[in-house]
């Protein structure tokens, strides 16, 4: 084939794809509400494909579209009413056409598909023979030829087979013509049609590759601009700095302009959904309406491509898993037909897409059970998480709530793939559901990927860029000993931010280096990943900047801490931090935390983790002790207590056990009767055991809590609300170091 023919063929393929997308949508609209406008459009689209395929000699394509066109022409002329079997057949025709166009695009031929069944089905529907088709035509009246017969073209009359035509034929001819005229008028005045025509004549088609190149060049220009701005700072020349100002403005405008050329309305992806919802609801025996809001919301073409599959999956899920059957809905007092609503809008430099349904919602109890069954969470974790957190567990790999795997949505790949895909383009996804009322999935995606606002930080003289999407706030700890404000809960560093424990990690540690001693303040960048917050300690916070994202080379790509690279104003390269990657590195993500728990319970220590506490009384005070600090619980009679130079001791398991009377250490009067046996909590550290005497051990609880440090006295970790009461939590380790310095000094030596 000549180049010229290749061009024509390409145009044919592109044009056909455009029509096919419209066809899906239009046909579904038609089924709900047959209007002449859509019919004329559908007919035209099929007609064009038929005509053009004939030119290329795509005979199968021509045959399929030909019978489709005949059926559509009947619908257009009002001779046949659109009903479900017809819509289904026409949609199958669209699929067949798409298959063939796919094949033409890849191999240049129509492919090996056999469409005879489809053709005869369409023919039957056209002639009104199909048992399901509800038409007035009795017998096999070929209305097409009947119409032919009335035309004045004598040479075609010969082929007209009107033997069976009835007296209704005449009536039918008049009506279609007036209908067709109506249709023509509506098409003319239709504002959308006029607008399309107008836009088309004022727009040109541009190769996407060219736009990509332009975007890259603009990226380079932004970098050059940044460099010049940096240089201006050191150059006193007024003219130069004025010119730089102009360059700065123009570059920004150019960047915005080029970015706009790549913007496409989300409608382009949503167009497929009416068809999907229709087919799926029929397949599941459900009734579903699709509502769309904000379909003109625009986002970068690349991103649009990337969210296509995840969104499709979510919409399918809404119909398949979300909505109930009409019977179930009626039983609950809901309307038989459910609604799947799509909503898109801009918010803070991001595009938010919501997919909601008014279906059954998600039962948190079911998710809890499933998550434990599948080993994604321990029982304690499952019980301790709130409903919203629990529902978001469905985004974890290997989770599927479908009672049985259907061939519709439960295809083994689940919501985890949705999340991975969305996160790979710098987006995030969150789900909220009210059991019995419905589910809303909220997808956040950046407007564009190529140029992003970022925070520049420094660590060891090297600079790093953090995408602002993940940035929550910046915290600086000043004071004479900033290091002391970083506390350790189970060996994991945390910072108390407005009463919440924020896990922190030093950027040095992410790179496997020892963090330096900070003497003059600590900078914490508070980041969000996977709906959890953590703090990243950096040496210095420099500035915000628009950075141009450059992909990393093959070697660095494997380092999960980096998402890409960029060139800074001074021409040096800065790596872009991958916030998700770092969160995973420190076990912050839900999956990471889950895995870690599998290995050793209680190892991960995010804020509010589930902990076991030993509850005891001392005087009138309720106190608690982390159970993992407790080796054993013992009871000794007062006779067993002996006084030595090292204090009071008991003989215990062939050893001498030092006793520490907590009431004395804390200055809380004991209410224990003089002669009553003593309750002792045995604490063991490095082979040494110490007995801590308390008044009364009354409970062991398992609970999630945050320790409030505020007014904590010596020997206390702080207080927390345990069993709905404020309870002091004992720092047994610290307390014993104070009470028995000799013992611990000996151990240290």
């Amino acid at each position, binding site marked *: 084939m000549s180049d*010229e*023919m290749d*061009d*024509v063929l390409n*145009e*044919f393929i*592109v*044009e*056909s794809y455009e029509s096919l997308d419209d066809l899906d949508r239009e046909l579904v609209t038609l089924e709900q509400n047959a209007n002449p406008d859509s019919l*004329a*459009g559908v*007919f*035209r689209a099929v*007609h*064009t494909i*038929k*005509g*053009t395929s*004939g*030119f290329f000699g795509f005979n199968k394509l021509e045959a399929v579209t030909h019978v489709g066109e005949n059926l559509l*022409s009947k619908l257009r002329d009002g001779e046949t009413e659109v009903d479900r079997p017809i819509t289904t057949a026409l949609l199958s025709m669209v699929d067949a056409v798409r298959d063939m166009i796919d094949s033409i695009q890849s191999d240049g031929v129509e492919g090996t598909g056999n469409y005879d069944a489809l053709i005869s089905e369409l023919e039957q529907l056209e002639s009104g023979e199909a048992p399901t088709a509800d038409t007035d035509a009795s017998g096999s009246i070929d209305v*097409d030829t009947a*119409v*032919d017969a*009335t*035309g*004045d*073209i004598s040479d*075609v009359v010969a082929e007209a087979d009107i033997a069976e035509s009835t007296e209704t034929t005449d009536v039918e001819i008049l009506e279609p013509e007036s209908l067709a005229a109506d249709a*023509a008028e509506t*098409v*003319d005045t239709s504002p959308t*049609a*006029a607008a*399309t*025509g107008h836009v*088309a*004549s004022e727009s040109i088609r541009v190769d996407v590759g060219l736009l990509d190149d332009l975007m890259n060049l603009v990226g380079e220009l932004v970098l050059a601009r940044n460099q010049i701005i940096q240089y201006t700072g050191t150059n006193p020349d007024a003219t130069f700095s004025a010119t730089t100002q102009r360059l700065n403005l123009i570059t920004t405008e150019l960047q915005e302009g080029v970015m706009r050329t790549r913007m496409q309305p989300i409608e382009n992806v949503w167009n497929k959904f009416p068809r999907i919802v229709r087919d799926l609801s029929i397949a599941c025996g459900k009734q579903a309406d699709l509502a769309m809001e904000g379909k003109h919301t625009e986002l970068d073409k690349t991103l649009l491509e990337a969210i296509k599959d995840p969104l499709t999956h979510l919409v399918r899920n809404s119909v398949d898993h979300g909505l109930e059957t009409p019977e179930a809905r009626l039983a609950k007092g809901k309307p038989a037909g459910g609604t799947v609503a799509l909503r898109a809008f801009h918010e803070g430099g991001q595009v938010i897409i919501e997919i909601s349904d008014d279906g059954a919602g998600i039962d948190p109890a079911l998710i809890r059970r499933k998550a434990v069954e599948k080993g994604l969470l321990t029982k304690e974790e499952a019980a301790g998480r709130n409903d919203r957190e629990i529902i978001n567990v469905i985004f974890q790999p290997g989770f599927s709530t479908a009672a049985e795997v259907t061939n519709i949505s439960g295809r083994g790949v689940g919501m985890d793939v949705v999340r991975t895909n969305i996160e790979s383009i710098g987006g995030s996804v969150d789900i909220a559901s009210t059991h019995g009322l419905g589910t809303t999935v909220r997808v956040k995606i950046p407007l564009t990927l190529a140029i992003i606002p970022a925070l520049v930080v420094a660590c060891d003289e090297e600079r790093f860029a953090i995408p602002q999407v993940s940035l929550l706030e910046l915290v600086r700890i000043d004071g004479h000993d900033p290091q002391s404000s970083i506390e350790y809960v189970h060996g994991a560093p945390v910072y108390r931010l407005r009463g919440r424990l924020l896990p922190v990690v030093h950027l040095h540690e992410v790179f496997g280096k020892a963090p330096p001693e900070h003497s003059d303040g600590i900078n914490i960048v508070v980041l969000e990943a996977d709906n959890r917050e953590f703090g990243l300690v950096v040496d210095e916070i420099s500035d915000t900047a628009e950075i141009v994202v450059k992909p990393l080379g093959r070697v660095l790509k494997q380092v999960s801490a980096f998402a890409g690279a960029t060139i800074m104003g001074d021409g040096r390269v800065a790596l872009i931090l991958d916030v998700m990657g770092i969160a995973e590195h420190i076990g912050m993500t839900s999956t990471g935390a889950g895995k870690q728990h599998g290995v050793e319970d209680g190892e991960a220590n995010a804020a509010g983790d589930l902990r076991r506490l030993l509850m005891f009384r001392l005087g009138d005070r309720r106190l608690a002790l982390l159970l993992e600090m407790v080796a054993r619980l013992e009871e000794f009679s007062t006779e067993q207590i002996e006084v030595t130079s090292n204090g009071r001791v008991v003989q215990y398991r062939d050893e001498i056990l030092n006793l520490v009377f907590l009431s004395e250490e804390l200055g809380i009067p004991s209410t224990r009767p003089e002669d009553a046996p003593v309750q002792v909590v045995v604490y063991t550290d490095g082979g040494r055991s110490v007995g801590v005497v308390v008044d009364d051990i009354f409970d062991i609880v398992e609970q999630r809590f945050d320790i409030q440090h505020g007014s904590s006295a010596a020997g206390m970790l702080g207080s927390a609300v345990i069993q709905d009461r404020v309870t002091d939590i004992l720092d047994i380790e610290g307390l014993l170091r104070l009470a028995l310095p000799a013992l611990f000094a000996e151990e240290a030596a």
Partner: protein
Amino acid sequence: MQVLIVDDSRAMRMILKKMMGELGHKDIDEAEHGQAALDHLEEKMPDVALVDWNMPVMGGEEFISTIRGRRDCDQIKVLVVTSESNPRVVYQALKAGADEYAMKPLTTEVIGDKLGMLGLA
């Protein structure tokens, strides 16, 4: 010879342009529907218009009847080029004022023959 191709399908316009090129006609303008073609007529009068039947905004029938109602367009030969095979359409086209009607199979030869019949070869 000035040629105006009126068709809403880009692929079809390319095909017709190619065919006309093979027949030696290089002076070709395009319009995507009847209204765009009417706008075009304000600037340039073609000798022949190859007109599709089914088009959005303004279809072939309306376009042809419109220009046939204008004296300044008398010299334009109108060739309806469509794969619409319904004889009623042929009838309507001729009634609206088309000079010729090219049906499938659409080949360069068919177009050439039709142009010849219009005295434009």
